[in-house]
């Protein structure tokens, strides 16, 4: 199955050579000419037909399309009124192989080159149990260690899962994030394409992480991948998503959706490093439902995009369930990072923790927007929220907007937020020891985000630190 899955230790960190040029590099995208821009019922029927989908999925897409007409754009948060659906290409594919290629060698050279520059195959060799790669609207490659396949783990493109595992997909697909949830959930429900399906059966513990990498290459592209993860009772797993796109100076839209179902006593960690280009509107929806004694952990880094609106959500449905949200957002020039977390305590004895760090630089705006609700049924809920923001220059902005609501008198909730700048004394100390100011600032920033970065696998922590260093370049001026 997997021809590149030979284990060896890399001589140097996988992502150490990443540069801005690596992400901004774009391939030829002549295939895009075959696909029309804009959103219509015809397009939805075309997508469904192209994927040879069952009738229920087409009906779902049509229902979602109807919601798009009635649900308005959100009235809160960053201004997204400039986003023009008529200018977005909602569906395009660069390769014609259904379900992706089974072997890395078969992947077309130009696509393979892109992922190799990003270090994906090398990461698979070194640290991952399985890899998925999506290019534009469709997955081009998926692999999984044989041992896990034998244990019943399913890790494939969601388009493939619709055909191969219809009963599972039908049971869970868009049940956690319904298409009428908000405008972009409706858009997603209508034009979703590609993404990942991960199923870990009861009691199976997948120790090494699984990864998918999503790449938009063409101009004015829209990517709507759907990640559906089902972790059965007492199972464990860790899944990582990485995203990037080149810069064109023209808008692109990413409205993905992640749905995670964590069974009784199960434990799951979802990590993501999003680094879309500054042209991208990243309006993603991520939500998990956690059953009795289940644990959900979110680790996220948001570096890219012009406008990000992303609030991973945990619904603590079962008694004794818990969630942990860790996030970093870096808002640089002309970026709005409107991120945060949502937690709904419903079961008894549930607990949650939210730790968010944000950085604003060059006039960038970072926003923590959170929701923490304790339902009447949620006896003895405990929650701890901590938000720290660093503003690196006088032009940048940091906002904190938490919404805390307790409908049960046994709840214990704590929220703390701090906003400040880099400590001059720390910078002076480092510069007096011969470290250039720019590097000193980067060191302090890396220290600031370290409590979250260290939760990522080592190789991804290196990538995250490298991305922060790239953002910190030219910060002294």
């Amino acid at each position: 199955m997997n021809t590149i899955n030979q284990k060896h230790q890399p001589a140097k960190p996988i992502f150490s050579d990443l540069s801005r040029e690596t992400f901004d590099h774009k391939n030829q995208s002549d295939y895009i000419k075959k696909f029309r821009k804009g959103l219509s019922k015809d397009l939805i029927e075309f997508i469904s037909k192209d994927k040879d989908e069952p009738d229920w999925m087409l009906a779902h897409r049509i229902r979602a399309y109807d919601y798009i007409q009635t649900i308005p754009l959100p009235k809160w948060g960053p201004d997204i009124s400039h986003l023009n659906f008529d200018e977005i290409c909602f569906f395009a594919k660069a390769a014609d192989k259904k379900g992706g290629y089974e072997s890395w060698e078969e992947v077309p050279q130009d696509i393979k080159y892109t992922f190799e520059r990003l270090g994906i195959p090398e990461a698979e060799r070194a640290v991952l149990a399985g890899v998925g790669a999506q290019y534009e609207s469709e997955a081009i490659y998926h692999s999984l260690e044989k041992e896990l396949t034998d244990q019943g783990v399913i890790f494939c493109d969601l388009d493939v899962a619709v055909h191969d595992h219809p009963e599972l997909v039908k049971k869970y697909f868009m049940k956690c994030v319904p298409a009428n949830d908000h405008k972009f959930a409706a858009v997603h429900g209508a034009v979703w394409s590609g993404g990942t399906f991960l199923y870990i059966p009861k009691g199976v513990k997948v120790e090494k992480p699984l990864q998918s990498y999503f790449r938009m290459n063409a101009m004015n592209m829209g990517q709507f991948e759907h990640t559906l993860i089902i972790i059965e009772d007492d199972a464990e797993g860790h899944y990582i998503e990485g995203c990037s796109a080149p810069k064109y100076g023209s808008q692109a839209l990413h409205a993905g959706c992640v749905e995670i179902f964590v069974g009784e006593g199960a434990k799951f960690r979802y990590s993501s490093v999003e680094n879309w280009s500054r042209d991208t509107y990243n309006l993603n929806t991520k939500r998990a439902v956690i059953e009795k004694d289940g644990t959900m952990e979110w680790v996220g880094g948001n570096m890219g995009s012009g406008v990000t609106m992303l609030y991973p959500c945990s619904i603590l449905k079962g008694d004794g369930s818990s969630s942990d949200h860790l996030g970093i957002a870096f808002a640089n020039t002309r970026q709005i990072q409107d991120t945060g977390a949502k937690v709904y305590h419903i079961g008894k004895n549930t607990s949650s923790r939210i730790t968010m760090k944000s950085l604003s630089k060059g006039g960038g705006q970072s926003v923590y927007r959170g929701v923490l609700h304790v339902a009447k049924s949620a006896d003895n809920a405990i929650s701890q929220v901590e938000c720290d923001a660093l503003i690196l220059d006088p032009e940048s902005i940091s906002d904190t907007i938490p919404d805390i609501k307790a409908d049960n008198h046994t709840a214990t909730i704590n929220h703390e937020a701090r906003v400040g700048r880099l400590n001059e004394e720390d910078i002076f100390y480092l510069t007096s020891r011969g470290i250039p100011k720019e590097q000193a600032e980067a060191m302090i920033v890396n220290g600031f985000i370290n409590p979250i970065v260290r939760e990522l696998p080592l190789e991804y922590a290196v990538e995250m630190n490298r991305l922060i260093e790239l953002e910190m370049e030219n910060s002294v001026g």
Partner: protein
Amino acid sequence: MHLNADIRGVILKKISNTEYVLDIAKNSVIHESIGLIFPATDSCSIQLTIKIGENALASVIEKFDADTDRNIDYKLTVQADKNSQLKVITLQNLTPKSTFNESRSTDVKAGGRVHFLNFQLGAKSAKGVIYQKASGTSGDLNVDLLCRAKGDQNYDFDVTNSYDAKNGQGKIFVKGIALGQSRLKMNGAIKITRKGGGTDTYLKQDSLLLSDQARVSATPGLNINTNDVKASHGASITNLSDELLFYLNSRGINKNEARKMMMTGFAAEQIDKISDMPEVKNYILTNL
């Protein structure tokens, strides 16, 4: 509306039946509290402007309590001149069928200090918006708001400190106690504009939820537009835990007494700030 006594340097001007201006003269240092007596009518809508002159110091007490049901609409505007210091103490303890709506806004010039000590204990529905702005350097904006809601009382308060000049300071402390089937909604915000470098400020919102029917919500927001600042906020929602109740019970303190102790302890931080006014302090402790 009239004052409880004639005080030198203080003049209450009537502009119309609903509009008044309270002038506190420049450089006056008034040690006794200025008491405002509101009209004893069923419905009353009052607009008051307090102008406190340069270097003046004063305390104003507003007391809203009556034996009959009242509907009060109150709008206060404070203009605090350079280096002035004003304390406004509000006691609202209206009957359980009354309604109370208040809106407070302040403009604080360089070196000025305004401190609202606001105690909300009565009325069926109480709503308030407190918006303070430091337009001069080193403006000091402070709000202490204590809400105790019981029965079917519904409280909704919104407190904002906005810093539009350098080196601002001050704190917002909002505390809410929810009993019975009450609803308590408290929003707090700190805004620092690009001109507000050097500001050091804090917002704290604590809630004590003492009934299984009560509901509490809190939104402590920060809106920071420059980097040379220290701004933070904290929010908590706590309850009378079974462990604490057991501990107190084992020492002969019953549930009601334990609840009263918990409430007094919870509110102590704010009540202690008026320890120089023993009558006011006793009034709050008796009615808490």
